[in-house]
């Protein structure tokens, strides 16, 4: 899988990073220079099958022609004017997002964590409106909501980093899927329950229907909001446009990002009618968000993904992928929905080592926990891509067993 070399090469790129970039990332030793559909090429010309899509961002495939066209045309016409003025792509996208989900209003952001910040503001202000002086937000342990301070405070696994403290007050968590603890944690001071319907960064763990129903009932009982973080699960990833559509509940607010822009940064906080008018002028804002280019890109993505035929394809191909994976020696289980798949490996198999080996073999995945590989392929792949990926994973697991 080798093509033509491009760019300055891995070593020079690494040298520049070493000198000039903050040391916040532990990167795999690959310098990607090009992408098309489900494929990536590195600076040496080596080709990779991408089953990670930049952590579920390029869900319509790398450099999808419709998204590229939308970005190109809009960037030739108008790139930025700020939110002091009207722009049509923003209004059109808001209409699409609202009509396809909760039917309320939309606040655009540049990222997922910012979308959650907006949701947290809505929750707190909504609670103040109920007379709550010190609003609390309840989430599940091992939820991941982002790295800005509000979202970070709602991410129990990261909020314990004392070097970054203090976190914001008013956040608490309960064990994943523990419906009883959740009911107990929600009280008069609760502003919102903020959860991922399928936990992504934790290793792809769907939240049980019982826990989701408990969250909905508990919120209804005290007048709190139920907020779904659909940053990873949304925009078709699970085989419906939004993951909540495959659950027995409907949230009051949902947040989206990642795949929404097809590779272009954009996020959105979408409300239902109950939370639509909570934020008022002066409560929130952004200079860059809702820019014409980002919203044009997202409009192109939604036109591709909000398609019953594609969504059925995602559900069926996801089932096929899981079925193939479960036949492999070394695979204990698969978790997830649609093309959001966690592969639980048997005891003693190091997922990070398998992930690194797969990268060498030309398959891009990641290892969010020591016993799990996470697969987030483009929604537009076919069964041949699945067969190739499963073949490579099988070879890698076999190689690990023979060590």
């Amino acid at each position, binding site marked *: 899988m080798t093509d033509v070399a491009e760019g300055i090469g891995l070593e020079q790129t690494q040298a520049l990073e070493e000198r000039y970039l903050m040391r916040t990332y532990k990167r795999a030793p690959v310098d990607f220079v090009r992408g098309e559909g489900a494929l990536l090429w590195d600076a040496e010309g080596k080709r990779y099958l991408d089953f990670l899509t930049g952590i579920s961002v390029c869900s319509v495939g790398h450099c999808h022609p419709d998204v590229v066209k939308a970005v190109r045309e809009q960037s030739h016409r108008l790139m930025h004017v700020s939110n002091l003025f009207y722009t049509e792509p923003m209004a059109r996208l808001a209409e699409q997002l609202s009509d396809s989900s909760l039917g309320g209003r939309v606040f655009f952001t540049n990222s997922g964590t910012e979308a959650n910040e907006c949701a947290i503001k809505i929750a707190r202000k909504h609670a103040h409106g109920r007379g709550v002086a010190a609003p609390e937000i309840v989430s599940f342990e091992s939820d991941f909501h982002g790295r800005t301070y509000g979202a970070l405070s709602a991410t129990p696994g990261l909020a314990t980093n004392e070097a970054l403290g203090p976190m914001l007050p008013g956040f608490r968590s309960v064990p994943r899927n523990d419906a009883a603890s959740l009911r107990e944690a929600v009280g008069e001071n609760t502003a919102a329950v903020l959860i991922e319907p399928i936990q992504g960064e934790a290793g792809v763990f769907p939240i049980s229907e019982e826990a989701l129903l408990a969250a909905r009932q508990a919120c209804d009982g005290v007048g709190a909001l139920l907020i779904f973080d659909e940053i990873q699960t949304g925009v078709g990833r699970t085989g419906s446009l939004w993951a909540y*559509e*495959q659950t027995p509940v409907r949230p009051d607010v949902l947040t989206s990002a990642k795949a929404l822009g097809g590779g272009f940064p954009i996020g959105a906080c979408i409300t239902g009618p109950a939370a639509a008018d909570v934020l008022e002028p002066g409560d929130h804002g952004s200079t860059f968000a809702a820019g014409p280019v980002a919203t044009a890109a997202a409009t192109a993505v939604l036109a591709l993904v909000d398609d019953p035929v594609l969504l059925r394809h995602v559900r069926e191909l996801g089932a096929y992928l899981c079925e193939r994976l479960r036949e492999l020696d070394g695979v204990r289980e698969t978790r997830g929905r649609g093309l959001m798949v966690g592969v639980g490996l048997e005891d003693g198999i190091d997922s990070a080592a398998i992930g690194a080996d797969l990268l060498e073999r030309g398959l891009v995945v990641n290892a969010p926990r020591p*016993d799990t590989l996470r697969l987030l392929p483009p929604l537009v792949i076919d069964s041949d891509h699945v067969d190739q990926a499963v073949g490579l994973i099988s070879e890698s697991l076999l190689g690990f067993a023979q060590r």
Partner: protein
Amino acid sequence: MSRRGRRDDPAKKTLRTDTAERLEAIVEAAERAAESVIDDAETQARRYLAQARAEAERQAGDRVAEFSQLIDTLLGQAIALQRDAERLQVTLEVAKDRFLDEREEGEQKEAELPSIERPAAAPRLRAVDEPEIRPEPVADPEPAPAPRSDPAGARLLATQLAVSGSSREEIAERLRIGFEIEDTDAILDAILGPEG
């Protein structure tokens, strides 16, 4: 004093001249005044005409804007209807294709059952189902029991699945697994209509 002398009296001559000049000035002033009155009248007439024309144009513009707004509203409704119809059409086409595929597959299976060869490593595509999502291995609390008695939750799940394009079989399977509802027909008939 002779007539000639009287006629050429410089004082009288001056008086005549003055009088003529005054008369001429008065006539000129009167003419100017008349012209000014005419000009004012014309200006006023033009202003009235312009105002009348502007008012007529404004009223016509208002009418056009009203019609335009009405047309936009109707157009928006038509587009929404068209979009709904397109979605419904796609959903029906998918359902039809699936039905035809399943029927064809069933007929093929019946015809070729003894000689069929299928590689063990390549199972057929099928919809995601829950039982294969086994309980997670970490030290979580006891796996959550299925929410057996929440008819509202079951109906909402079925409705949302239907809206998102899931088939009757997919929805029935989720209801059986998630809510332990064996006879799913009542819910499905209410949402999707009776099975043809």
